[in-house]
């Protein structure tokens, strides 16, 4: 990323401070929240235990009082009278005494608001502090049945006359013979329990402790609004209450019966068959945590802010010399080598700027040197350039001369071509009328001639024909040398060509008493120029006849050898010396024969044969054992011709 150093430093400081602050805040937040929740639950737990204990103490105290009442003198008086048939007045008095005694208990601060005595057999209310109740039967009540057996404390229940939660105590009354003669029942209002429950100490603003009975009803609450009267009409179905009513104790964060999220502790009181709960609004609990969180945020933020400020400060302090250096470098870079960088501090920046200035000085010096060198180089280049120009001139002149020479050569070449034209055309043209006129004369068109005249004319004609052959051969020769020699190949039977040639020359050979024999295999068809191959065969046979004396033999063979067809012409003639064999196929070469014979030829024949055979991709050569021992001329033609 292309960013200035200052920005990088600031970003780095910002990053470090933000990360640190965030980590610290989150860590302290999490740990404090956990710790606080734990502490809070412990706190609620202790409140619950305390209240439970108080409630139990209250009940024990109440039970003691109740037992004391039951064992009282008056009760024993009361025992007697339904069974001993005293006088009505006396009975009334006794009853009065008992009722008065009971009333004195209800009126005094013993916690009982109603006390009454049940008949042991029928459960009928015999005596009561509430006179309107006397005569009613309570045999169906739990406090009657359980009360016959011993001290019984009822569940919390709702008392309609009281319009409040109440508890009944019941206990059997015995006579002096320890016979059960009745059941004493005392109803207790829960004022003291309410007081215990109402005690809000340690519960904060939203804290609440309350009791829930086995029927899932709220019994007593510390809340003013639930008060001491509403109660028992409020159903409680919460996770905590359900769990608690199964006899369990515990704690947790859950929704209470008002739908608020609370931190709560619950405890089952087995003796009373109630559940005691203490709850605090989660928000209140967490308010402290939130406060701590806020504090951590403020402190972290402040630290981060300070760090960023420091970042700005340091980046400014660090990058200022860098800026000066960079500007200086830019100025020097633009060519002003006299520029100096004014950082005098005794640190690395000062050192760097001093070295920078030294470097600029060195640069200036070396630039001067370079400029000098450049001047020298330019001078050298100038002289080099002039030398080059001179050279180019020379080359141009030479080229001109050469092209002139070339033109001359071309002219000469043209002249040669013209010359050949003259040789072929101009030389051959006069031969036409010469030949025709000679023939007219010999044919007797212009009158009958003597034998000597005819011989003379025939000699002229023969030499005219030599000239004709010579011009034709020269034409072929020049074509071969200039590469204008062309073949016109067709599919050819070499066997037929040889046979035709032999047929043609048989008469000529016979005239000289030479035996001409042919030994030809059936050769495959090959691609070749028929006219030219015939020309070669004629040439070889002509030569053979020419250089073979009378009674001699000429044999012609044609056979296959590997990829080639071979034709051999062997004669019993003069033979050829070794030195001559090599020159045999050169143009215009003719063997000086010992015996000067009437040899006719241009000296081009074998050279042309060589050209023709080689143009077919074949070879031609001569062999001889020596002079007087005959000679063999051979040529090959490839079965698959490659035109060169």
């Amino acid at each position, binding site marked *: 990323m292309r960013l200035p150093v200052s920005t990088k430093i600031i970003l780095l400081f910002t990053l470090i401070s933000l990360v640190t602050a965030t980590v610290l805040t989150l860590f302290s937040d999490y740990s404090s929240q956990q710790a606080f929740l734990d502490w809070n639950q412990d706190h609620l737990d202790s409140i619950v235990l305390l209240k439970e204990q108080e409630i139990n103490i209250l009940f024990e105290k109440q039970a003691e009082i109740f037992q004391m009442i039951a064992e009282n003198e008056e009760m024993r008086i009361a025992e007697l009278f339904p069974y001993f048939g005293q006088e009505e007045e006396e009975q009334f008095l006794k009853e009065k005494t008992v009722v008065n005694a009971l009333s004195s208990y209800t009126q005094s601060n013993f916690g009982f608001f109603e006390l009454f005595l049940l008949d042991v057999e029928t459960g009928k209310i015999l005596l009561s502090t509430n006179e309107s109740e006397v005569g009613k039967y309570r045999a169906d009540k739990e406090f009657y049945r359980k009360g016959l057996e011993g001290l019984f404390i009822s569940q919390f229940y709702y008392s309609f006359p009281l319009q409040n939660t109440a508890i009944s105590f019941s206990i059997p009354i015995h006579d002096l013979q320890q016979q059960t003669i009745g059941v004493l029942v005392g109803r207790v209002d829960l004022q003291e329990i309410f007081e215990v429950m109402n005690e809000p100490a340690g519960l904060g603003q939203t804290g609440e402790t309350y009791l829930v009975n086995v029927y899932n009803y709220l019994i007593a609450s510390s809340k003013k609004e639930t008060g001491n009267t509403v109660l028992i009409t409020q159903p409680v179905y919460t996770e905590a209450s359900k769990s608690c009513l199964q006899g369990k104790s515990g704690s947790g964060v859950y929704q209470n019966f008002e739908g608020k999220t609370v931190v709560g502790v619950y405890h089952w009181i087995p003796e009373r068959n109630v559940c005691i709960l203490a709850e605090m609004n989660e928000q209140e609990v967490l308010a402290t945590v939130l406060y701590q969180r806020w504090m951590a945020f403020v402190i972290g933020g402040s630290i981060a802010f300070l760090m960023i400020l420091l970042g700005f400060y340091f980046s400014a302090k660090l990058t200022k010399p860098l800026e000066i250096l960079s500007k200086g470098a830019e100025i020097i870079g633009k060519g002003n080598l006299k520029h100096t960088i004014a950082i005098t501090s005794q640190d690395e920046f000062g050192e760097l700027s001093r070295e920078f200035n030294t470097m600029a000085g060195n640069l200036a010096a070396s630039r001067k040197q370079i400029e000098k060198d450049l001047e020298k180089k330019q001078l050298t280049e100038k002289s080099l350039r002039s030398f080059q120009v001179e050279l180019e001139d020379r080359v141009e002149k030479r080229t001109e001369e050469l092209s002139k020479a070339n033109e001359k050569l071309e002219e000469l070449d043209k002249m040669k071509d013209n010359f050949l034209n003259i040789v072929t055309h101009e030389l051959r*043209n*006069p*031969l*036409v*009328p010469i*030949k*025709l006129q000679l023939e007219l004369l010999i044919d007797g*068109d212009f009158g009958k001639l003597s034998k000597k005249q005819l011989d003379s004319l025939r000699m002229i004609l023969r030499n005219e024909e030599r000239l004709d052959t010579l011009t034709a051969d020269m*034409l072929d020769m020049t074509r071969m040398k200039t590469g204008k020699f062309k073949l016109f190949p067709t599919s050819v039977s070499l066997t037929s060509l040889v046979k035709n040639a032999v047929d043609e020359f048989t008469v000529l050979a016979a005239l000289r008493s030479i035996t001409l024999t042919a030994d030809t295999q059936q050769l495959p068809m090959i691609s070749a120029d028929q006219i030219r191959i015939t020309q070669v065969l004629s040439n070889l046979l002509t030569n053979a006849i020419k250089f073979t004396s009378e009674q001699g033999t000429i044999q012609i063979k044609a056979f296959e050898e590997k990829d080639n067809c071979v034709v051999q012409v062997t004669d019993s003639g003069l033979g050829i010396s070794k030195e001559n064999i090599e020159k045999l196929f050169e143009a215009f070469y003719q063997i000086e024969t010992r015996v000067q014979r009437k040899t006719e030829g241009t000296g081009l024949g074998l050279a042309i044969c060589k050209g023709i055979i080689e143009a077919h991709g074949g070879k031609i050569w001569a062999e001889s054992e020596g002079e007087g021992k005959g000679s063999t001329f051979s040529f090959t033609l490839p079965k698959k011709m490659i035109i060169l």
Partner: protein
Amino acid sequence: MKRILHVDNEPDTLASVKTILEKEGYDVTSVSTGMEAVKEIQADGYDLVLLDIMMPDLSGWDVFTRVMKVSPKYKIVFLSVLDVTSERLAELKKHGLTGYITKPFDRDVFVKKVVDLVNLKK
């Protein structure tokens, strides 16, 4: 009598050919330039034209192509010292050439060829 036009810039050749062909019973007209040949051909009808190729003013090729353009039925035979290949000859015949005789030639061979070509129907 069959009429033959012979064009050649060599007077001796013209004279020799005329002698030989007249002995065979032909009416031979000899001209020595290409222009004359063209004029002659335009003016008169010939049974055969023997045409030299290499001539100073108008070459045999030129004469041949001009004549073939106007009257392709004309029988023209080249007489030349230049060799001709069978391929080239076939091509020329496609363009209307009747024959080709290489100079120099034997009298008998020449006469036989001329007789054949004069009687040839084109």
